[in-house]
C-alpha cells in the first residue's frame, strides 16, 4: 500500500467498510439475477454518490472534491473487491473528458450533475471487440454551428444507464472528442451481454446532431482520456485480484483433503506465495500509475505498464483461484467464478498486454 495522506486513508477505510458491510458479493449476485434495465446497482451508486465518490476527480467549483486519481483508485479497488456493480469508473472517466476538455458550456452543464451522481456518463471510443484507438471510423462533419456524428461504437460499458456519452470521431482535422447526450435523436443502443452480467451495448449514431459546445478536444485529449481509462481499469482489477486471492487463501485454510488442511500442502504454499508476489508487484504499478496521473509524470508509459501488469496478473490469479478451489468453484452457487467472468472483460478493455507491450516499446524508442 502506497503511503497515503490522512484524507486518503480515511477515504480508503470508509470505502472498505461500506463495501464490506453494504455491498458484499451477495449484492452483486442479487443485481445479476434481477438484471435491472439501467445496467447497474442504482441503490449502491446512489449511496456512493452521497458519500461524494462520484466527484473525486471533479473540481470543487463544479461540486466535486478534487481528491485526485489515487483517491479514486483506492475507492475503485475497494468496491471492486466485492464486484460492486457501479458506474463509478465510467462516470469519472466521462467527467475527466469534460474537465480536461475545452468546452466551458459542457463543463457547466454536466460536471455538477456527474459530481452529484444525478447522472451517469461513459466513454464510447472503440468500434470493435479489441481496443484499437487508431481505427476510429465514426465521422463528425460540421453542420452549421455544430456537428453531425455517424458511426457505431462497440461494447460501450454502462451504456444503458448513461445520460452522456463521450464519443471519439474523425473530423476533417483528425480525431475529435465530443460530449453527446444520450437522449438525442438518432442515437440507439443494442445490448451486448457479456460474461460479467454488467451493462455493455453497441451505440449507434445515425446523423446525431450536437452543438459546437460538444467539441471537447482532439487526439491529445483522446490519448489522455485513454490513459485514464487504462489506469482506472487496472485499479479495479487490483481489487479483483486481491480479494479473490484472499478468499482462496481462507478456503485453503479450512478445506481438508487426505486428512490434511489444504493450506499445509507445500506445492499449494508455493503457488500462493507466487500469486502473493505477483499481486504485490501489480499493486506497485497500479498505485504508481495513479500517482503519475496526479503528478502528470510519465503517464503514457505508466498507463501501459499498469494495464499490462494488471492484465497478466489478474489473468493468472483468476485461473489459479478457480483451480485451487476445486469442484465447488465450478458451481454457480459459489461465487469465485464471478471474478474470472469480470476479469476477462476488463483484460480486454482498453488494451491487452500485447497491445501495451508494443506501445511501451514504441514509447521507449524500440
Amino acid at each position: 500500500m502506497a503511503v497515503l495522506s490522512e484524507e486518503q486513508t480515511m477515504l480508503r477505510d470508509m470505502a472498505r467498510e461500506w463495501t464490506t458491510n453494504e455491498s458484499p458479493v451477495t449484492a452483486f449476485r442479487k443485481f445479476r439475477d434481477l438484471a435491472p434495465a439501467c445496467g447497474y446497482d442504482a441503490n449502491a451508486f446512489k449511496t456512493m454518490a452521497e458519500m461524494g465518490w462520484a466527484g473525486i476527480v471533479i473540481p470543487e467549483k463544479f461540486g466535486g472534491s478534487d481528491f485526485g486519481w489515487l483517491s479514486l483508485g483506492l475507492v475503485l479497488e475497494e468496491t471492486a473487491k466485492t464486484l460492486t456493480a457501479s458506474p463509478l469508473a465510467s462516470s469519472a472517466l466521462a467527467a475527466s473528458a469534460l474537465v480536461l476538455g475545452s468546452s466551458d458550456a459542457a463543463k457547466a452543464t454536466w460536471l455538477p450533475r456527474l459530481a452529484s451522481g444525478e447522472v451517469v456518463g461513459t466513454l464510447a471510443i472503440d468500434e470493435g471487440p479489441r481496443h484499437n484507438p487508431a481505427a476510429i471510423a465514426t465521422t463528425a462533419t460540421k453542420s452549421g454551428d455544430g456537428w453531425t456524428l455517424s458511426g457505431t461504437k462497440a461494447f460501450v460499458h454502462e451504456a444503458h444507464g448513461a445520460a452522456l456519452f463521450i464519443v471519439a470521431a474523425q473530423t476533417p482535422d483528425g480525431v475529435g472528442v465530443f460530449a453527446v447526450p444520450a437522449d438525442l435523436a438518432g442515437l440507439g443502443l443494442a445490448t451486448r451481454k457479456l460474461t460479467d452480467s454488467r451493462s455493455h451495448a453497441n451505440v449507434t449514431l445515425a446523423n446525431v446532431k450536437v452543438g459546437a459546445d460538444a467539441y471537447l478536444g482532439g487526439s491529445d485529449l483522446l490519448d489522455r482520456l485513454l490513459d485514464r481509462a487504462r489506469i482506472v481499469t487496472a485499479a479495479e482489477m487490483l481489487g479483483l485480484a486481491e480479494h479473490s486471492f484472499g478468499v482462496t487463501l481462507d478456503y485453503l485454510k479450512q478445506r481438508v483433503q487426505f486428512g490434511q488442511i489444504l493450506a499445509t500442502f507445500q506445492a499449494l504454499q508455493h503457488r500462493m506465495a507466487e500469486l502473493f508476489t505477483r499481486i504485490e508487484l501489480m499493486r506497485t504499478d497500479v498505485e504508481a500509475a495513479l500517482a503519475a496521473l496526479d503528478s502528470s509524470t510519465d503517464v503514457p508509459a505508466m498507463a501501459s505498464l499498469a494495464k499490462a501488469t494488471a492484465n497478466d496478473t489478474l489473468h493468472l490469479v483468476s485461473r489459479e483461484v478457480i483451480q485451487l478451489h476445486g469442484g465447488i468453484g465450478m458451481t454457480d452457487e459459489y461465487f469465485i467464478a464471478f471474478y474470472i467472468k469480470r476479469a476477462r472483460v476488463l483484460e480486454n478493455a482498453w488494451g491487452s498486454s500485447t497491445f501495451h507491450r508494443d506501445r511501451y516499446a514504441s514509447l521507449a524508442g524500440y
Partner: protein
Amino acid sequence: MATAAKEQPDALEAFRSEVQDWLAANFPASLKGKGGAMTSPYGADSAGPEGTAWRKALGGKGWGTPTWPKAYGGGGLSKAHAAILNQEMARIGAWNPIGGMGILMFGPTLLEYGSEEQKLRHMPAICTADIRWCQGYSEPGAGSDLASLQTFAEDKGDHYIVNGQKTWTSGGQWADWCFALVRTDKSKKHEGITFLLIDMKSPGVSVKPIQMISGMSPFCETFFDNVKVPKENRVGEEGQGWTIGKRLLQHERTNISGGGGRMAAAMAQGLVATAKEALGTDAQGRIADPELRARIAKFEMDWRTFLLTTQRITQESKAAGGVSEVSSILKTVGTKLVQERSELLIEITGLQGLGWEGEGFSDAELAATRGWLSGKATTIYGGSTEIQNNVIAKRILGMLDHQ
C-alpha cells in the same frame, strides 16, 4: 488386425457386404451428419423417433459395442470386423448412437468385475443404451481425496441401507441406475469401500441439479435417505470397491484426455482462421499481430506434440502389452492445452469472445464462452492436475510420500 485381415480376406469382404446391406436397410438417411445429437443428454433419442429407432436397431444387433461379448448384448466382432463396420458407417455418414457413461466407464468395469448374473442382467441394456447410468463417487467432503467418502451402507442381511450424499453426479437427473462407491466399514479407509449398483427409482433417492458457472447443469447432487439396496447389486466383495472404482477411473481419464485427430486439426485451424479474420494479415499472409501469431504457432505446435504423444503412448502400450506409465501425463497436458486454447481464443477475439447470450453473438461464439468456463473443470475432475502430479512424482519418479 492386419494379420487377421490377411488370413481371411474373403470372410472379411463378405462381412463388409453384410454390413453395407444392413446399414442400407437400417440407417435412416435423414440422420446423416446428425451425430451431434450424441452430445445432448438424451443422446440419439434427441434426434426424434428415427433416432430412437436407429439406436434400437444398432444396439439390438450389438454393433454399438461391436467387440463386446455377444452373450451380454455386444457384437462379438473381432477387431478386424469392427474396423470394417466403422469404415462402412463412416463412408455413409452413419454414427454410433450408443454412448454415455454405461459404455465409456461402467460397461468395461462390469465386464471385468461383475458376476455372471450381473452381466446378464445389466449389460444388454447398456449395449442398447436403454438404461442410462450415472456415477456416484464424489461427495462434498471427498473430492480429490475420494477415499474419504462417508456415504454409508449398513449391512441388513440380504440388503444394505444406504445413507449419504453424492455430488458431481453426471447426468443424475436423467439416469436410471447409479454405480456408486459406499462405505461398509468405518474403521478402514480404502478397504472399507464397496461398489454398489443403485436403482435411481428406489425410495429415498433424490437428485438436485447443480447449476455450473457455464450456466449449464450437467451434474447433480444425489441424496440417499435410507435407500434399500439388495446385496445382489454389490459388484465384487465388500471392501473391494476401491480397487474396482480406481479401475473405472482409468477409463474416465482416457476419455477426458482423449480428443481424436479430427477434432485436433479443427482446434488449430479454427484458431488460425479466427485470428486471420479478427486481426487481419500482412502482405505475406501472416497474422498481423506478430506476438499473437507466435503464440498461436506455439499452441499449434504444443497441440501437435500432444497428439503425437498420444499416438506414441498408444503404440508403446500395444507393443508392451499394457498401459504405459507415461500415460499419466496425457490428462494433465491435454486438459491444460484445451484451456489454453479457450483463453487464447478470447485474447484473439477480444470482447466478442466473451458473449454470454443474446444478440450480436453467433451460436459458435456463445458455445465457446460456455466451453471456456466448463473447461475449467477438466483440470479438477477425474484426478486433478495436482493429484496427477503427485502420482507422477511418487509412482513414476519414486519420490516417496511427502507427508
